[in-house]
């Protein structure tokens, strides 16, 4: 990975390695100190929230219905936990009220060129139901900051924090693991352009394009079902697996529930060596999908294990691709929900 774009000429003049250390030092640090929300849990806000969400569960607004479920009275929807601590529109747009740690981290990420942010996922654990009168506070602590990843949006880092929600007695009521991608918008990337890499390759863009970065869309989602989920789950862990029949040991891809050679429904997987050759390839120009950079080189790669797969070729100009070219696996984290095996040409002697 190249250094963060701003590191060389940053105010502190720090080299890239120490920038990494400064980011790493944020793990465990408090971003937002415990702070009570503006209002205690109350029925009017519950009513508005339930109406806006179309949630008609009566336990939120109907005392009798709530008691019929064994509760002492109405409860707040669990997923409102965060809502009780939100600072409101005016404070948010004015940039007021986030903690000193949060402001320091934002500045450090900005220094690295990570000026854009997109929320990627949120995991909640609820310890008890909130009831009117509870007054919720939240404290936010950094759990981890990832190394720089190539994503469809641009190079960036995933920042994971843990938000602990407590009541007015200091007891924890909910815990949220919150992840955002802080990224460098592509046109401002200082990485050298790699014409074969769909993450960095962009057609010549005008100054106007650079100023108005259009919203990026994600790559098409795979339709994940019971027969193929294992493959995409392994991919999310950066493992390229091949389905293997447990009966006759034949490998097969794309996978399926039944072995065409022996009829067995039993199977396991083997992990591919990640080495292969280009069996055929195309260079896509039209139609264009906004998740990809064009021209886009898509190949059928034949793995050492003799199965083939459709994949992208990276690190090579379209006119340099040849059939039977040796290639090796690497991973593309297209976005937080999609990791894909892609292949890069390697020298002939790198092949066994």
């Amino acid at each position, binding site marked *: 990975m190249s250094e963060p774009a701003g590191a060389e000429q940053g105010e502190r003049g720090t080299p890239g390695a120490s920038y990494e250390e400064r980011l790493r030092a944020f793990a465990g640090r408090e971003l937002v100190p415990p702070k009570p929300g503006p209002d205690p849990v109350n029925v009017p806000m519950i009513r508005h929230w339930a109406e806006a969400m179309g949630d008609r569960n009566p336990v939120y607004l109907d005392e009798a219905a709530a008691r019929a479920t064994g509760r002492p009275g109405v409860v707040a929807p669990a997923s409102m936990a965060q809502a009780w601590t939100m600072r409101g529109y005016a404070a948010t747009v004015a940039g007021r009220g986030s903690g000193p740690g949060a402001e320091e981290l934002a500045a450090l990420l900005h220094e690295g060129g990570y000026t854009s942010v997109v929320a990627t996922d949120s995991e909640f654990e609820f310890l008890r139901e909130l009831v009117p009168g509870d007054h919720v506070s939240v404290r936010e602590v950094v759990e981890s900051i990832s190394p720089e990843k190539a994503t469809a949006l641009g190079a960036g880092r995933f920042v994971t924090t843990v938000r602990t929600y407590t009541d007015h007695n200091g007891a924890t009521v909910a815990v949220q693991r919150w992840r955002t991608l802080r990224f460098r918008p592509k046109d401002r990337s200082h990485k050298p352009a790699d014409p074969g890499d769909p993450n960095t390759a962009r057609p010549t863009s005008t100054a106007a394009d650079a100023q108005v970065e259009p919203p990026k869309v994600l790559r098409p989602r*795979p339709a994940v079902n019971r027969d193929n989920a294992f493959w995409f789950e392994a991919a999310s862990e950066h493992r390229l697996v091949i389905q293997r029949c447990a009966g006759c040991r034949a490998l097969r891809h794309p996978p399926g529930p039944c072995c065409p050679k022996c009829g067995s429904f039993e199977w396991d997987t083997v992990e591919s060596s990640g080495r292969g050759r280009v069996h055929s390839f195309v260079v896509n*120009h039209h139609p264009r*999908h906004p998740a990809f950079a064009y021209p886009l080189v898509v190949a059928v790669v034949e793995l050492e294990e003799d199965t083939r797969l459709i994949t*992208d070729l990276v690190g090579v100009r379209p006119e340099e691709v040849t059939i039977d070219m040796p290639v090796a696996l690497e991973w593309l984290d297209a976005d937080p929900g999609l990791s894909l095996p892609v292949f890069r040409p390697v020298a002939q002697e790198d092949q066994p």
Partner: protein
Amino acid sequence: MNPCQHPLSGAAAIAGIGATEFSKDSGRSELRLACEAVLAAVADAGLKPSDVDGMVTFTADTSSEIHIARNTGIGELTFFSRIPHGGGAACGTIQQAAMAVATGVAEVVVCYRAFNERSGERYGLGQADRPMDTGADRAAYSWMTPFGLSAPAQWVAMFARRYMHEYGATSEDFGRVAVVDRAHAAANPAAWFYQRPITLADHQASRWIAEPLRLLDCCQETDGGQALVVVSAERARDLPHPPAVVLAAAQGSGQDQHMMTSYYRPTISGIPEMGLVGRQLYGQSGLAPEDIGAAILYDHFTPLVLPQLEELGFCGRGEAKDFIAEGNLELGGRLPFNTHGGQLGEAYLHGMNGIAEAVRLVRGTSVNQPPDARNVLVTAGTGVPTSGLVLGPGE
């Protein structure tokens, strides 16, 4: 089997054909296009809508037979069926109809296909943003669309590149297919590209779509409808037009078949499902490649015309580029091809307009009628489970 005794060969005939105009914006519903085409075909056969008792279309069609029957005065139906796999269905609809007629399940079967493929849902834009479910058909796209391989031109390009590598074919070899199609379309007033022929230089100058495919390797997108009426060969002889007898009708799905992406077979430079169709066509009809006077070969993209010629025995493996360069597909050649202009030149109607052209060739009414077009071979979509026909004057 003695071909004379094959129960399907010679049992049925296409007695009527009818189509709408072929356009880029019909301004009408797909159902209305289907109704217009069906009524035109029934009238062409000299029959009434109430004579129809069977209907066949594609699973891809948006208008079920009940809507057409209800709207056009077709009454009771004793047979209705649909064929899957896009353009691969075309000749399969006629096979279904012929089998129904041969077994007495129905007497007058209409096969139809109508869509607003240009002004409505355009297949060429690909599958990337189609709604998802988790059924096996949809899940099959999981191996392609996340990598940016989502449109038919791209799927075909993968086969084409490998074919070029194995047999030394070039972009110009593909271009010659387009030039023949457009030359024939130029003389066909019903064709979108009427009076607009192209040269090989035009082809070579056209922009890349999915290398090695250029724009002029790709068929157009069309709004329109086409219908055909199938009756018994015996009844057809009493109807106004000379019958186009179904001498053979076959479907084929190959080993390790995928939808447009059968990239996992030992070799991907052939189209084994078309070979399977061809063997059945010759077996049923008792004919050989040299008995075929003209061919309507599916041409959604030019490169797959070449392995079709090889799979169907018109030339050897890898020899199609020479067969084409020698002029064999032109009107004076050994195998006049796509005399209507093909889907590149006339219209993209999922192959159904090509079957109608084969009927005209048998009737002797094509605008590009070759001197001897007895026994016309027709194919359906390539890269998919497919189908084929041999039509001729019969006895």
